[in-house]
C-alpha cells in the first residue's frame, strides 16, 4: 500500500483587511479527508535554536472548525476568453481568420542559458506539442475548431461531422519571427485554405534577408458539417472541462496579435465578425489591464486570465516609441505563457470578516491535518484606533520572490551566492508542484522573464517557517520581518501593519497619524506612490526606521483593478535577474517604465540616506562606530553601548548584522548633507560584489576586499519639520535582534532609536 503524504495548500484573496472587511481563503488538499482551520497570531517565524523559535498564539475566530478536504486543480496557462452570447464564433462557416504570431517555444523545448543566473534546466518539464492561437476546439469531445501550432506547424483543426481533421503546413515556424497566419474556410466551396507569411519586423531574431522563413500554404476539402463545441472561444489557449470550470489547455508560448475574423468568402462581401485590438484600452488612462477590446460592431470583448503580458511590441512595432499608450497600434499583441498562473481560482473554503475587537497585527489561517500543516498569512490593519508605530511589510518583495525555484534550474545559483544552496524541505514540496508558478526572478518555459507576481495561488516561500536557499539559515521575506514583530513584542511596543499595496493606494494619508514607520528587512520593490508617501511623511515630521537592505530599489506596480496582482518588468541596466525585451519594458498596470529608481530620478539615497551597494551570501559581519556616532545629536542611539564596541557581530543570518544585501552612504546619489554617518560594516569578503549599476564596464576587482563601496552603512538624518530617518543598510540586521534573548547591542541600539523617535522633540534637541 502506498502511503501518500498529506498536503494542504491555500491562499487568501488579498494580503490585508481592516475590521469589518472580509478575506476569503481558498484551500486544496492532497490525501486529506478533513482539516482543521484556526486563527493564529504570528509572532516569530524562524524555527532554529539561534532565535526564540517559532511562536504563534491561537486566537478564537468564527471560521475555526473542521472542513472537508477537497483537491482542486491549479492550472497554469494564460489566455483571453471571449464571451460569445449569440454564438457568432461557434462555427467558422465562411470565416476568414487572420492572426499574427511570434512563437517563442514552437517545438515545446528550449535550450540555452537564460538570465543572470544562467538558467539551463526547466523543472516544469516540456511544454505541449500543441499550442493554440485561437478557437473553441474541445479535445475531449472532438468538437469545435481551432488554429494551432501542432509540433510547431501552423494547423487548422476541426471535426467534419465524423472525424477530427487537420490541415497543417509542411514546416514548423521559426522561434522569434513574426508571421501572418490566414485561414479561409470556404464552406460553400467545400474548401479550407491555410497560409503563413513571414512578417518583416525589427524584433525578429533574424534580419529579413537572412531568414529561412518563407510563405507556405496548404488546402483541404471541408464538409461544413460542424460539431459545435461547448468550450468557450479563447485566444492563446483552448479549454478543457474540470467540473464546473473550463481550465486552460494547449496554451501558447509567444505573442499573438492583429486578429481579425471576417465572414464571407469573396473579398468584396466580407463582414467583420471580430477585430480584437490588444493595444487599445477600455480605460481613459490607457492602461492595459484585464479587458480586451473588440473593435467590430459585434463587440465581442474579451478578458485576460492568468495575466498574459500586455504592452508588448507587436508585428507593427517600429522601434521608435516604447510607450504603448502613445502608439497602441504598435502594441497590438499579447505575450502568452503556458506557465502563467496568477489565480488558481479555487472556490473559497471559508471567509473571515475581521472583528472590530481584533488587534492589528500579523495573523494566519492555520490549516492542519494529521500529517500536514499550512499557514495562510495575512495582515489585520488598524481600525479607528491606531498605534504610534506602523510596520511596512514588504509584500511586493514577498510576491517578487514567491515560489523561487532558482536552485533547481540555474547553473549559476551557486556562483551568485558563493556557496552550495541550502535547500529548505518546503522547497521540495514546491518542486512537486510546478503548477503553483514561478517567482519574478525566474524564466518562463519559453525563456522570457517572469514579470507578474500574484497572491492568488499557493506561495510556499510565504510560509512563516520557510528559510531561503541563498543564505545559510536564511530568514527572508515574511520570516525575516517576523523578527521585527517579535522584537516589538519583546520591548512591549504595539504596531499597525501596512502593506505595500495599501500604501500605494492610500498614500501619505495612511501614514499621517503615525509617529514612526518601520520598514521590513528587504523592501526592494516599491511603487512611485509609496516613495512619495514616505517622502511626505518624513517631510511632515514623521520618523522612518529603515531596518533593511537593498530597499526602495526597483519599480513595481499594482493592478488598480486587482490589488493582489503585482507587475515587475526589468530594464536593461543595473542588477537584474533577467531583462524585458526592448519595447516591452513599460508596466501596463501603471504606465511606469521598468527599472531601478536610481535610474528614474528617485534613488533610495535621497529617501533613506543609503542605497544598494553590494550583495554576497557567504557570511555577514559586524558594524563599527564612526566619528559621527559621537556627535551629541546621536548620543541617544548609542546609550548603553561602548565607544569602541562592535555592533552586531552575531545573528541568525551569516553570523552578523551587516550582510546579505547591503546599502551604503552615497552623497553623490542624494544622501542629505546633514546625514550623520554612524557606523560602517566590518570587512566583507570578495563574495560581496559591487552592485552591477555601479559597474559601467566590466572590470576586475569588484569584491569587498578591493572596493571601498562594498559596505553597509548606518545613518541618521534629522529633517526640517522634526522628521528623521535611521537606516541600517543591511538585510541581515533584523536577524540579529533576537541574539542572546534580545540582550544585545543591535536590539539596544534599535530600541534607543525607536523610543527617541516616538518623542516629539526634534532630534537636535538633546534630551
Amino acid at each position, binding site marked *: 500500500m502506498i502511503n501518500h503524504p498529506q498536503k494542504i495548500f491555500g491562499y487568501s484573496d488579498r494580503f490585508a483587511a481592516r475590521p469589518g472587511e472580509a478575506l476569503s481563503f481558498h484551500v486544496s488538499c492532497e490525501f486529506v479527508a478533513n482539516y482543521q482551520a484556526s486563527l493564529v497570531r504570528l509572532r516569530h517565524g524562524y524555527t532554529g535554536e539561534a532565535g526564540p523559535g517559532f511562536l504563534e498564539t491561537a486566537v478564537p475566530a468564527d471560521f475555526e472548525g473542521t472542513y472537508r478536504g477537497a483537491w482542486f486543480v491549479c492550472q497554469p496557462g494564460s489566455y483571453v476568453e471571449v464571451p460569445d452570447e449569440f454564438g457568432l464564433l461557434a462555427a467558422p462557416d465562411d470565416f476568414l481568420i487572420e492572426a499574427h504570431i511570434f512563437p517563442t517555444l514552437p517545438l515545446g523545448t528550449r535550450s540555452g542559458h537564460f538570465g543572470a543566473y544562467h538558467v539551463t534546466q526547466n523543472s516544469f518539464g516540456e511544454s505541449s506539442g500543441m499550442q493554440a492561437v485561437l478557437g473553441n476546439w474541445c479535445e475531449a469531445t472532438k468538437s469545435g475548431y481551432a488554429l494551432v501550432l501542432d509540433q510547431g506547424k501552423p494547423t487548422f483543426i476541426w471535426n467534419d461531422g465524423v472525424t477530427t481533421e487537420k490541415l497543417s503546413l509542411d514546416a514548423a515556424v521559426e522561434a522569434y519571427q513574426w508571421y501572418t497566419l490566414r485561414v479561409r474556410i470556404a464552406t460553400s466551396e467545400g474548401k479550407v485554405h491555410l497560409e503563413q507569411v513571414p512578417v518583416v519586423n525589427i524584433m525578429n531574431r533574424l534580419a529579413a534577408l537572412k531568414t529561412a522563413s518563407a510563405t507556405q500554404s496548404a488546402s483541404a476539402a471541408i464538409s461544413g458539417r460542424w460539431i459545435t463545441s461547448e468550450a468557450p472561444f479563447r485566444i492563446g489557449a483552448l479549454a478543457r472541462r474540470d467540473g464546473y470550470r473550463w481550465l486552460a489547455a494547449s496554451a501558447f508560448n509567444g505573442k499573438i496579435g492583429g486578429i481579425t475574423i471576417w465572414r464571407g468568402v469573396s473579398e468584396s462581401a466580407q463582414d467583420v465578425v471580430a477585430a480584437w485590438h490588444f493595444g487599445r484600452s477600455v480605460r481613459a488612462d490607457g492602461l492595459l489591464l484585464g479587458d480586451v477590446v473588440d473593435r467590430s460592431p459585434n463587440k465581442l470583448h474579451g478578458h485576460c486570465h492568468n495575466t498574459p503580458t500586455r504592452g508588448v511590441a507587436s508585428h507593427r512595432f517600429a522601434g521608435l516609441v516604447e510607450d504603448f499608450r502613445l502608439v497602441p497600434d504598435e502594441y497590438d499583441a499579447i505575450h502568452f505563457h503556458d506557465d502563467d498562473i496568477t489565480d488558481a481560482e479555487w472556490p473559497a473554503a471559508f471567509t473571515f470578516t475581521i472583528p472590530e475587537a481584533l488587534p492589528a497585527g500579523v495573523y494566519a489561517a492555520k490549516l492542519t491535518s494529521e500529517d500536514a500543516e499550512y499557514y495562510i498569512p495575512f495582515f489585520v490593519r488598524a481600525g479607528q484606533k491606531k498605534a504610534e508605530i506602523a510596520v511596512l511589510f514588504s509584500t511586493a518583495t514577498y510576491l517578487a520572490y514567491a515560489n523561487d525555484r532558482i536552485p533547481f534550474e540555474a547553473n549559476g545559483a551557486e556562483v551568485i551566492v558563493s556557496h552550495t544552496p541550502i535547500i529548505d524541505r518546503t*522547497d*521540495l514540496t514546491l*518542486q512537486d508542484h510546478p503548477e503553483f508558478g514561478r517567482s519574478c526572478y525566474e524564466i518562463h518555459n519559453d525563456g522570457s522573464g517572469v514579470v507578474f507576481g500574484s497572491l492568488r495561488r499557493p506561495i510556499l516561500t510565504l510560509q512563516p517557517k520557510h528559510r531561503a536557499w541563498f543564505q*545559510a539559515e536564511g530568514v527572508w521575506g515574511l520570516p525575516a520581518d517576523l523578527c521585527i514583530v517579535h522584537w516589538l513584542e519583546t520591548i512591549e511596543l504595539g504596531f499597525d501593519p501596512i502593506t505595500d499595496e495599501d500604501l500605494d493606494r492610500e498614500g501619505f494619508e495612511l501614514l499621517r497619524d503615525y509617529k514612526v514607520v518601520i520598514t521590513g528587512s528587504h523592501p526592494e520593490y516599491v511603487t512611485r506612490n509609496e516613495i512619495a508617501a514616505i517622502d511626505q511623511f518624513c517631510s511632515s515630521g514623521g520618523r522612518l526606521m529603515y531596518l533593511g537592505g537593498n530597499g526602495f530599489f526597483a519599480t513595481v506596480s499594482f493592478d488598480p483593478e486587482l490589488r493582489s496582482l503585482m507587475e515587475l518588468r526589468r530594464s536593461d541596466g543595473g542588477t537584474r535577474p533577467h531583462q524585458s525585451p526592448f519595447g516591452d519594458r513599460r508596466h501596463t498596470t501603471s504606465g511606469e517604465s521598468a527599472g531601478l529608481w536610481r535610474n528614474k530620478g528617485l534613488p533610495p539615497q535621497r529617501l533613506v540616506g543609503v542605497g544598494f551597494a553590494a550583495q554576497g551570501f*557567504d*557570511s555577514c559581519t559586524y558594524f563599527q562606530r564612526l566619528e559621527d556616532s559621537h556627535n551629541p545629536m546621536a548620543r541617544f542611539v548609542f546609550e548603553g553601548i561602548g565607544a569602541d564596541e562592535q555592533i552586531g557581530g552575531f545573528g541568525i543570518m551569516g553570523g552578523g548584522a551587516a550582510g546579505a544585501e547591503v546599502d551604503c552612504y552615497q552623497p553623490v546619489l542624494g544622501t542629505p548633507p546633514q546625514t550623520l554617518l554612524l557606523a560602517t560594516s566590518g570587512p566583507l569578503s570578495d563574495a560581496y560584489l559591487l552592485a552591477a549599476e555601479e559597474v559601467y564596464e566590466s572590470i576586475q576587482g569588484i569584491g569587498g576586499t578591493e572596493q571601498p563601496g562594498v559596505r553597509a552603512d548606518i545613518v541618521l538624518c534629522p529633517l526640517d519639520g522634526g522628521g528623521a530617518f535611521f537606516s541600517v543598510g543591511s538585510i541581515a540586521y533584523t536577524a540579529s535582534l533576537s541574539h542572546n534573548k534580545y540582550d544585545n547591542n543591535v536590539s539596544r541600539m534599535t530600541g534607543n532609536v525607536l523610543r527617541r523617535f516616538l518623542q516629539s522633540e526634534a532630534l537636535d534637541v538633546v534630551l
Partner: protein
Amino acid sequence: MMRTIEQRMTELNCVFERRFTARLLADLTDDVAAAYQKSPLGPHDYNTVRVVRALGGAHIHDKEVVISLGDNGPWGIGRIALGKPGNLARLSETFTSYEDALRGVFSIRRQAFLARSGSPGEAGPSGEVGATP
C-alpha cells in the same frame, strides 16, 4: 552537408571545456582542498575561490545541493534530479552542521572531477537513498 548551429556551438563548448578542465586540474591542488575543508564558507584565497566557483558553476543537472532536514539540522546532500520526488535524489549521509555538508559536497565534486579527468581523488559520500524526506 551544411553543419547546424547546434553542431557549431557544441564544437565551441568542447574547445572551452578542454581549456577549462586543464586549468581546473592545475588549480585543484591539495592545498586548495585543505583550504576549503578548513573553512567552507571562506574567506578563501584567489586560487581556492576559482576552484570553488568552477566546481559550483557546473550544469544544474545532477548537481549537489545541501538539504536542511530539521529545525536545527541535521543536513544532508541531494542531487537535482528532475522526475524524482522533490526533483531531488538524496544521498544517505547526514551531517550535524551545514558546513560539514558543504565539505561533503566539495569532496564529491572533487572526486568526480578528478575521476573524469583521469586523476586519483578522495572518497566522499555517494550512496543515494532515493526518496526525499
